[in-house]
């Protein structure tokens, strides 16, 4: 694949000189700044919001809205749990979230989400990409959009981090046309990026020499045969160098033992504490996942188990962001791929339900304590102010100051940041 932007235009010529100059100087900021300039910069308006951050907590499998944000006690669909009051007078959530209930004045609930699908893959894609995948187009992940739109030109850390519950690592392929620079770096089970320590048998001097050699070869090669692939290779090598130098940013063991205790000594607690650490280090977008809510069987036992973990860690994280003055600049989103059926099946389970469920937001740009929209008495339909994934996607971005009605300019084309046929939920925005 030839790189369209290696066409010799004035802008790209400057970018290339910055890039190579940065390498020669060995300056982290210079290197990454040069690379950042390789792509067309986002609109100036977007860059003004550079101090904002986004935290997404993804409840994998499909969190039950009835056991969380939209309880329906004493109805045929309500299940065995009670609703409890929260720090917002008149707003009740499920009794499985007693600690989160004390922080609801920082959060807002959207109770009227309909994404018109009950399929895991389709629902997940819609929720994190803001549009359905089509044969003709693959859209960038919310994290990639955020990382690009809120890009810090002087930051050498990646802008898009996904903390995954399992192992693994590496870089995902979820930035689409925004390019791999904005794809998520995966921290498998909250561990620092893979291969981010120098092998023991390699001395510092030898490492410097081999990287100098690599750069010289790269420079010679790219002077004549530069492609998108070579840029990606170069970028990944340089970013890896930066990650190795700043590896402690990703090391949650550096956090205080008391905080580990407060967040819970399970994986999700550790991941939420790591999320706090990353956000404090100005990573633009952090996604934490909690598994598993796909409770076709024994929905109530499994929600009791899972939300017990979630409640403690999430409440601690919201409280800390508030206490540290970070909520004004940090958007919090709690989402799933869909909700769960109001009908309780024969195995005490709930099945997939994208038709009427809830998403929680809070922090930057969001009306604190708001409850937007409603479902009917037993939760089977949206009864007021229906919204979908596209409305939410616009809302997330506008909450952190990105004009989601604008477009990214990629290779000379205008590509809308969010679905141009949709719009934000203005009533939720401050």
């Amino acid at each position, binding site marked *: 694949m030839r790189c369209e932007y290696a066409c010799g235009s004035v802008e790209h010529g400057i970018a290339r000189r910055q890039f190579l100059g940065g390498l020669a100087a060995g300056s982290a900021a210079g290197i990454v700044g040069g690379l950042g300039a390789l792509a067309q910069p986002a609109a100036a308006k977007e860059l003004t919001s550079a101090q904002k951050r986004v935290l997404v907590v993804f409840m994998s499998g499909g969190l039950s809205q009835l056991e969380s944000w939209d309880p329906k006690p004493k109805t045929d669909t309500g299940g*065995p749990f009670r609703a409890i009051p929260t720090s917002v007078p008149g707003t009740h959530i499920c009794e499985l979230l007693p600690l989160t209930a004390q922080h609801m004045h920082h959060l807002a609930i959207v109770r009227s989400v309909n994404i018109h699908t009950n399929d895991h893959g389709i629902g997940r894609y819609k929720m994190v990409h803001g549009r359905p995948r089509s044969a003709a187009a693959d859209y960038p992940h919310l994290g990639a959009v955020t990382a690009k739109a809120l890009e810090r030109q002087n930051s050498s850390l990646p802008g898009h981090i996904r903390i995954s519950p399992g192992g693994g690592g590496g870089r995902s392929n979820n930035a689409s046309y925004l390019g791999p620079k904005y794809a998520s770096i995966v921290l498998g089970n909250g561990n620092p990026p893979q291969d981010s320590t120098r092998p023991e048998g390699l001395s510092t001097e030898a490492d410097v020499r081999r990287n100098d050699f690599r750069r010289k070869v790269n420079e010679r090669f790219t002077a004549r045969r530069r492609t998108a692939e070579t840029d990606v290779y170069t970028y990944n090598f340089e970013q890896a160098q930066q990650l190795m130098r700043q590896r402690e940013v990703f090391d949650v063991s550096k956090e205080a033992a008391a905080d580990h205790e407060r967040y819970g000594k399970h994986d999700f607690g550790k991941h939420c504490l790591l999320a706090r650490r990353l956000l404090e280090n100005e990573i633009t977008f952090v996604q934490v996942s909690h598994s598993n809510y796909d409770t076709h*069987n024994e929905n109530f036992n499994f929600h009791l188990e899972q939300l017990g973990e979630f409640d403690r860690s999430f409440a601690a994280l919201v409280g800390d962001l508030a206490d540290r003055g970070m909520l004004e600049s940090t958007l919090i989103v709690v989402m799933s791929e869909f909700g769960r059926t109001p009908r309780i099946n024969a*195995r005490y389970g709930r099945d997939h339900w994208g038709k009427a469920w809830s998403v929680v937001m809070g922090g930057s740009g969001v009306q604190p304590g708001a409850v937007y929209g409603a479902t009917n008495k037993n939760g089977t339909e949206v009864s007021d102010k229906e919204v979908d994934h596209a409305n939410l996607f616009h809302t997330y971005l506008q909450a952190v100051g990105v004009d989601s009605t604008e477009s990214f300019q990629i290779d000379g084309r205008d590509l809308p940041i969010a679905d141009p046929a949709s719009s934000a939920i203005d009533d939720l925005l401050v």
Partner: protein
Amino acid sequence: MAVDPKQTRVTAQWKTGGPLICCRFDPQGRFVFAGGEDYAIHRFDAQSGEQTLLSEHDCWVRGLAFSADGESMISAGSDGQLVWWPAAAKQPKPMRRVQAHDGWIRTVNVSSDGRLLASAGNDLVLRLWDLESGELAQEFSQHESHIYSTFFHPGGEYLLSGTLQGKARQFELAGGKLVREFDVSSLHTYNGGQRVHYGGVRSMALSPDGKHFACGGLHKATNPLGAVNEPLVELFDWESQKKTKSLIAGGDKGIIWRVAFHRDNFLIGVSGGSGGGLLLFWTPAQDKPLHKLKLPNTARDMDVHPDGVRIATAHHDRHLRISTMAAANG
């Protein structure tokens, strides 16, 4: 009258207002009670099926137990309340309410002498209540996972708790000391892919001769969130704690919601789940059931009538069903 479990068939079914969770005959055998997702208890005349609705619960009704004479019925709710009722009154009304636990009560049982009531809740605490006064008598808080079942040893000395993590703990009633623990970890699964704990000791029973101790639940849980698992009853020698048999269903999917010993020394288990409802009959000597009765709908609880002939089952399709075993030949 000796019975032949192979000659068991469904002889009655009575419809209620909601999916049922639990069922019990009163000790005199006059009534069978069922608790459900409809926030109600349904009392049926065991002969005629005449139904009386007890609707004062404000939550799902998850457990039922009786005083020894059968005149008091105690129900347990998902709101943590125990409610005492006059079991045989024309229209029973609550006599006493006790806020017993923080969160659901999962199981409730009465001691063989009728003096004590055991309840266990989502607060991970096992409590003993004076059945007559409703006063708290004792508390056992040594549980690190949910208590799914309780069992009073008929000798009157011990109370056992069965947990999600697959432990059956034996406590002294006098003093509350933990005496020993049965390892029933085969009934527990942690699925690393789904990141869930699943299974547990759903029911316990002791044979009439006191030799065989049974713990019911599930195994082969390859997909806990999708209900892919099979029923299992683990049988132990009560004295030595040695596992003597693993009683299986023979390929059917489901969970043993309750296991009971018949006075003729065979076991009855009720299974429900993705494989539908089953009544399973085993002898302590064989791992495969001597008989399986397919029920019309998935089942969630079971009780044997004092006559030893009738079996009540609680079903998701809102029905309480009565199955009847025939007299054994000769």
